[in-house]
């Protein structure tokens, strides 16, 4: 297997694997966030569990960070190498005649998501790390000790319309990224077209419903608080 990950196809498998992992993570993230719309309590419980359970914090979280980094760094490398494979560009190229906009612009939708991830880290992840591991407060409680802090923190974040706007825009790009990315990941993994036709419909649904759901959550908290 030594040369595998140096080969073009080996890298495709690795890229697809990281993407499949990210899509699974996204589903799990959505499942917890949507609780905030229906039950602040349930959302608090789930957040506290995810934020303090050792396997999530010390196993899944590092894997996630590695997965995201691997995915976008490999995305950049792929894009860079692929650009080098054509030195002189066409004077006239009609890409729209044979492929979707989404498939030709994965690097730009990806960059938009990366920009969002930076904002998202500053918004939620860094304060979490600060509270839990620097200040050492693992209780998950509000400053006055009256119940969990997670729901309060979440709703607080969605007050600023600029931030809500940025989140909505980022999820539109995520949707565009996944419109191509979902089926692409299965094609890269060598899944045969017979099975892919059923996956295709599921992929389109995933690429629309999940980002739309995240948009709904952001808008819901913006207009309800």
């Amino acid at each position: 297997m030594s040369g595998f990950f140096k080969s073009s196809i080996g890298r495709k498998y690795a890229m697809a694997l990281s993407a499949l992992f990210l899509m699974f993570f996204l589903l799990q993230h959505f499942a917890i966030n949507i609780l905030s719309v229906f039950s602040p309590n349930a959302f608090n419980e789930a957040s506290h569990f995810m934020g303090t359970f050792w396997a999530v914090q010390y196993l899944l979280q590092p894997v996630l960070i590695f997965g995201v980094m691997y995915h976008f760094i490999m995305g950049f490398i792929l894009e860079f190498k692929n650009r080098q494979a054509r030195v002189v560009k066409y004077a006239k190229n009609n890409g729209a005649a044979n492929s979707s906009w989404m498939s030709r612009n994965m690097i730009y939708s990806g960059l938009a998501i990366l920009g969002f991830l930076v904002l998202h880290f500053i918004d939620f992840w860094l304060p979490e790390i600060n509270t839990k591991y620097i200040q050492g407060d693992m209780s998950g409680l509000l400053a006055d000790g009256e119940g969990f802090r997670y729901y309060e923190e979440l709703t607080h974040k969605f007050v600023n319309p600029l931030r809500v706007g940025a989140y909505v825009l980022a999820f539109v790009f995520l949707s565009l990224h996944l419109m191509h990315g979902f089926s692409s990941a299965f094609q890269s993994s060598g899944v045969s077209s017979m099975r892919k036709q059923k996956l295709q419909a599921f992929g389109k649904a995933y690429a629309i419903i999940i980002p739309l759901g995240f948009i709904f959550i952001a808008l819901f908290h913006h207009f309800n608080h």
Partner: protein
Amino acid sequence: MNLTLKIWRQKDAQSKGKMVDYKVTEISEHMSFLEMMDVLNEQLINTGEEPVAFDHDCREGICGMCSMYINGEAHGPDRGVTTCQLHMRMFKDGDTITIEPFRAKAFPVLKDLVVDRGAFDRIQHAGGYISVNTSGNTQDANAIPISKHAADEAMDAATCIGCGACVASCKNSSAMLFVGAKVSQYALLPQGQVEATDRVKNMVAQMDLEGFGNCTNTGACEVECPKGISLENIARMNREFLSANIKG
């Protein structure tokens, strides 16, 4: 019809080329695109200019020699055809047509619209064959049972004519449709099994060595391929490559 042609002119592999405008008149809509190019070249020869070099051989869509990137698409705007089968009726009187060579680092321009597609030959040499004993006791291929389904799929893959339109159309200049087809035509048949592991590894290694880009599944190749080679062949190659690497 009367047309304006914007054509890439390049003296030789070392020179820098540029787009040059030409006018052609009284082109019949029944002509093929290559016949229209013949008319232009006759005109250029009569005025003492250098004719435009372009590749062609069979002129019936089976050899894969004719190339050209026409109005931003390999083999022009029609589907399922090579440039020799592209008819001028696809264009309108007064049109401006942009004609460029297939572009990829692995397909260097030799002159004008002629590119060197030797990279494809080298990929084929790396594993696109089966070894058979031809001492006179060669087994009749028809004696080996093959399912109709596999035979059909192998035949579909084998219709690839190595034209390079897939590479030219791909935003990444990836050769995976071509290599996928060449791997698949053997992978589907019993005769191809013996050398299957080495074949896919060696062909992919050669493909990477030639400087083709990496597939991102845009599907442009499948749309522009004159022989309708399916993306399924790339998925099959990926599976073959993975299992070959697991086997060692």
